[in-house]
């Protein structure tokens, strides 16, 4: 294992600001980011990665490789929540198992963005159409989670309000902004792209850094919920991403992805949603405890992925010869 890669990733200013956020909560500082700003940052990041992904998709076109990647993304978005559900059912009730499975079947856009920044800083190329894979993988897990409850809950008396579920899954703000930005990037003329560069490139890394500071604050505040999660869920929050990443890397090798794309695909499969899915789960599976699925995604999996996961998955990609 190349510990140098892990160390250089950990010394990345954006990651260091994440640590700063964690440390400030643990030291009981009153550091706080005013509440509309983190949402603004997350909207900005979604807009920019969607737009840049659309621009690069316009350049690359829809090749066989692109289509294979999208098919792999759809399959992963369906298989990961189902597999996670059955593992979680060893210890949890149907509702919590389904909600957590849905979180882990979806993706974290911020982890993806952190991975793209890592690739840029290490000089590893990747394709912008991976953003489309991100958009594809956001929503199916929500539907899968609801279906799993429907199938396995013997006490389910009421039917499912599918219009509400589908609206939350495919029309939630994150998905609309990401897909919309992707489409706009796809059709925007080159002159318009250039004029947006101060916004999409100039301030991008700074906003990501500031956002990770807030993520550190959030993750640390959720640490106390880990006492309720117990060792099984803590272990799941670390091991499931690694297992999912390994499987993703093997799929990436099978379909001939490059190193950079394989890392992004691994990160997508290894990450958990703490924005789109929790809101959908709160509406669709209110019996589930949001402190579990939010805390696991925020306080365990997200920090694990950005600190250790990204460099680890790159090492695995090199070992497996992708």
């Amino acid at each position, binding site marked *: 294992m190349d510990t140098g890669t892990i160390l250089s990733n950990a010394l990345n200013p954006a990651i260091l600001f994440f640590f700063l956020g964690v440390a400030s909560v643990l030291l009981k500082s009153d550091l706080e980011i005013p509440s509309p700003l983190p949402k603004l940052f997350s909207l900005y990041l979604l807009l920019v990665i969607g737009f840049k992904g659309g621009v690069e998709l316009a350049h690359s076109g829809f090749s066989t490789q692109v289509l294979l990647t999208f098919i792999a993304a759809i399959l992963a978005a369906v298989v990961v929540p189902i597999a996670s559900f059955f593992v979680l059912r060893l210890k949890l009730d149907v509702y919590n198992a389904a909600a957590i499975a849905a979180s882990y079947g979806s993706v974290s856009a911020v982890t993806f963005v952190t991975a793209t920044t890592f690739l840029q800083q290490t000089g590893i190329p990747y394709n912008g159409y991976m953003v489309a894979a991100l958009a594809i993988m956001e929503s199916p897990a929500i539907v899968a989670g609801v279906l799993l409850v429907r199938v396995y809950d013997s006490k389910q008396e009421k039917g499912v309000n599918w219009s509400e579920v589908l609206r939350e899954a495919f029309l939630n703000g994150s998905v609309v902004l990401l897909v919309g930005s992707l489409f706009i990037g796809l059709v925007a003329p080159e002159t318009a792209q250039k004029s947006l560069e101060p916004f999409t490139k100039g301030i991008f890394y700074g906003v990501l850094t500031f956002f990770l500071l807030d993520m550190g604050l959030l993750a640390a*505040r*959720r640490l106390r919920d880990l006492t309720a999660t117990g060792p099984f869920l803590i272990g799941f929050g670390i091991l499931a991403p690694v297992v999912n990443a390994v499987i993703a890397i093997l799929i990436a090798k099978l379909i001939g992805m490059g190193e950079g794309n394989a890392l992004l695909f691994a990160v997508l499969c290894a990450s958990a949603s*703490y*924005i*789109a899915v*929790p809101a959908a789960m709160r*509406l669709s599976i*209110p019996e589930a405890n949001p*402190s579990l699925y*939010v805390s696991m995604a925020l306080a365990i999996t997200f920090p694990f992925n950005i600190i250790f996961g990204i460099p680890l998955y790159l090492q695995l990609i090199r070992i497996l010869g992708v």
Partner: protein
Amino acid sequence: MKSVKRIEIVVDSVELNRLVEVLEESQLKGYTVIKDVLGRGLHGLRDGGDLTDVLTNVYVLVACNEDQVHPLIEQLRPILTRFGGICLISDAQWVVH
């Protein structure tokens, strides 16, 4: 002044739209919503600390006539049963102006 019933409801933020639909259908003259409400209840701690308002509540205040209370409560009961929250009813005096 006029005697009215004060209804105070605390539910998850994600339930606000559903709750407002019920209030609109009840043909009430008005209601007040306070967002980002924190606290603890049977469903655990709601202390914010996330990006989606899943871990925050909303507080809704309604003033209505006594004959509107029972139909409204029957509409609210399924929401409270399924999604949690509290609903308090008390007497109040409406300042006519």
